């Protein structure tokens, strides 16, 4: 099995800069609590240049750099961010294994589908860069070789040919043996060894005799023969992204900026899972407490960050928050499989954006319940035969699919024959009808819209009945009546009270 290691140097620092671009180039550190002392876990490049080192106390670091900014290092949050990146990379690899806080392994067995391992590695670097991450990628036979070369190598993307792990590792310093015990490294240094190549050159029997199993492990690592253990990280069930703003935002722009980061990550994760957003909730944490939520529902499921962001921007423009926003959260409430979209040459999915924006605008003004698509129910009571449902039109086949005939892609919808005899308009409630009956008891005229109208023709009855098993059943004899000056009306005689009712118009 071929493995790749994606190393993201000082990932927590990169993340902090991505979320607050003002920190770029500034000296700052991330601190953690170690035995009651605040110690530096990660330092920015500017802080490192000033002499700050990970492990030093915050007091010592602050003494080196005047006005050093410091932020808490939250391991769980960093791991979650790394997990998001791993999910986003699932577009290129079938599985990943986290190695928090600075890297992850990828299953590179599918690299052949991307034009070879070199191309694949370059694409992984590009995918990371697209999200703002600086990464180094190494593909090798086993996990240690890939990790050590990614962490201590210099190339952005590197492929170690199969069986040449030892040769590739040879120039690396002894500190690359991160899995080995510290004492063991010291022992190796005491022997005058400086590189992994020198360790690998030692005879295995002598290494075992002097250092035991642990030394043998270090020896095998240096030779690139450490057995790989790749355990794919399970994907979380809930897709959620959280972002804390450093300063309370009182205007739309900083909120939108944060939202872009959030939506970008969410969409990248969706793409990795081959899913598309159907419904998502944006939550805004307010200062000092409270939360405002905005639900976005899409007619055309999508994983395009730009479209979602446009939609969110539109919804936020009409939103008034009484307090500043200090945090954002985006949660996917419903998603579906994303089959992708084949576009026509030179075409773009602009129509989908227009659709989503207008639906969003209408939903904001009229309410979600005012917009719907109709579903036909298999019941006989006419007024109960319609059920509103969410408007999710099927995508329009384009490109080659349209050329070949979109009909093949869509199932043929069959309509029950009886529906062809139904009127185009159905009154919200059947209206009692004042009628005149002929000698034979047939309907001869009716009073509609305030005046008597002659029945010039009549067809029927069509008996509809049922629901007696539930109580409150119905039995109706329906007639199609030509009323002069009006047109064709759908009238029924109720079996319960014998009265006539107007229920629809064949308009």
């Amino acid at each position: 099995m071929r493995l790749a290691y994606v190393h993201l140097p000082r990932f927590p620092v990169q993340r902090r800069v991505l979320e607050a671009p003002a920190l770029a180039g500034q000296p700052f550190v991330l601190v953690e609590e170690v035995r009651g002392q605040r110690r530096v876990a990660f330092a920015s490049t500017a802080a490192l240049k000033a002499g700050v080192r990970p492990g030093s106390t915050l007091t010592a670091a602050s003494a080196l750099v005047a006005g050093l900014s410091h932020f808490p290092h939250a391991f769980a949050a960093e791991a979650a961010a790394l997990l998001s990146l791993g999910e986003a990379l699932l577009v290129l690899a079938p599985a990943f294994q986290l190695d928090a806080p600075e890297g992850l392994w990828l299953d590179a067995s599918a690299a052949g589908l991307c034009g070879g391992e070199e191309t694949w590695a370059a694409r992984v670097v590009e995918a990371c860069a697209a999200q703002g991450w600086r990464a180094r990628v190494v593909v090798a036979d086993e996990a240690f070789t890939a990790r050590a070369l990614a962490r201590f190598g210099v190339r952005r993307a590197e492929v170690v040919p199969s069986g040449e792990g030892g040769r590739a590792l040879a120039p690396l310093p002894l500190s690359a043996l991160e899995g080995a015990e510290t004492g063991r490294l010291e022992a190796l240094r005491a022997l005058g060894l400086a590189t992994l190549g020198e360790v690998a050159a030692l005879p295995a029997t002598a290494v075992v005799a002097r250092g035991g199993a642990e030394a043998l492990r270090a020896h095998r690592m240096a030779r690139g023969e450490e057995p790989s253990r790749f355990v794919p990280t399970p994907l979380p069930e809930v897709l959620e992204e959280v972002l804390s703003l450093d300063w309370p935002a009182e205007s739309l722009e900083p909120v939108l900026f944060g939202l872009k980061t959030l939506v970008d990550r969410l969409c990248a994760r969706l793409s990795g899972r081959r899913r598309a957003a159907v419904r998502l909730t944006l939550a805004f944490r307010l200062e000092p407490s409270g939360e405002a939520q905005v639900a976005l529902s899409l007619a055309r499921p999508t994983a395009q960050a730009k479209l979602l962001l446009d939609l969110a921007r539109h919804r936020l423009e009409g939103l008034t928050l009484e307090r500043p926003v200090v945090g954002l959260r985006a949660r996917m409430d419903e998603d579906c499989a994303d089959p992708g979209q084949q576009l026509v040459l030179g075409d773009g999915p602009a129509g989908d954006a227009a659709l989503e924006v207008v639906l969003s605008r209408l939903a904001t003004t009229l309410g979600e319940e005012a917009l719907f698509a109709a579903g036909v129910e298999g019941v006989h009571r006419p007024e109960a035969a319609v059920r509103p449902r969410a408007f999710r039109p099927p995508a329009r086949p384009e490109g080659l699919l349209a050329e070949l005939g979109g009909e093949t892609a869509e199932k043929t919808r069959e309509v029950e024959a009886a529906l062809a005899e139904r009127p185009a308009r159905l009154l919200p409630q059947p209206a009692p009808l004042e009628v005149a009956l002929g000698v034979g008891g047939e309907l001869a005229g009716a009073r509609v819209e305030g005046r008597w109208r002659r029945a010039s023709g009549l067809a029927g009855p069509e008996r509809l009945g049922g629901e007696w098993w539930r109580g409150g059943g119905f039995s109706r004899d329906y007639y199609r009546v030509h009323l002069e000056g009006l047109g064709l009306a759908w009238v029924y005689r109720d079996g319960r009270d014998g009265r006539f009712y107007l229920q629809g118009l064949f308009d």
Partner: protein
Amino acid sequence: MGAAAERTEGTAEVLEQLRERIRKLQAAPRAYLATLRTGVAPFDALLPGRGLPLGSAVELCGEAASGRTSLALRAVAAAHRERRLCAYVDGPGQLYPPAAAAMGVDLERLLIVRPREVKQLVWTAVQLARSGAFACVVLDLTQTGARLALAEGKKLADAAFRGGSLLLLLTAPEAPGDGMLRVRTQAQGLSGLRVEVVRSRQGGMGAGALVPWEALYPALAAARGHVAAGMHPRELLGGGDQGFQRVRTSVERNGCGVMGGRPGRDRALPSLGAALGLGARH
């Protein structure tokens, strides 16, 4: 070497074929939907472009059951055949989707909007038409008490033009719209409905035609033909005494049986004695 050269030649040939295919695809005229034909020939023939032109607003004005909705739904069905989206702004809340489905409307591609307030109807239609996401937008203003002002009519026409959509306005004769092509529909008893262009800037004003009911509701054709053959309108209120005839097309769809009862439960089953030669039992 020979095999390799052959392979290279084959690849080059395939590539050239693919290039040629792409050139053809790019050069081929895009399927461009300019008009929506309802499929009701007499009606389509009246209109300037032999159909309802996209990018314009057309008013269908008529009585309550004069065929306006059916014509509009047939235009929607025409758009759905091209797999385009349509919207129906249902002011009175009377659209019956099962009937629309029977006319060829794809309910998955039809957005129904029912605003709570009458004043939101026109605004909604303007938004939908202007977006360009819908090929046809139907605005039903009947029985809402709303009367379209000239400015609103122009706004609707402008939105349809900008969005390249067809905007169909359904109105009643007592509250007609303004500022767009108007087609008057009028039921003509059993024979059908009369459609007439009563307002047009593109010409054809005054042109009219009779559309038989069968053209709008083909499923009713059999019964209708039978009725028309033997039916004489009764002089109901004028005191006439001509016999009124009707067609009995009794259909029992489900549920209750004879006389609304459940045979064997609400009513006794008819005796089979006579059929079995056992004689009547009393």
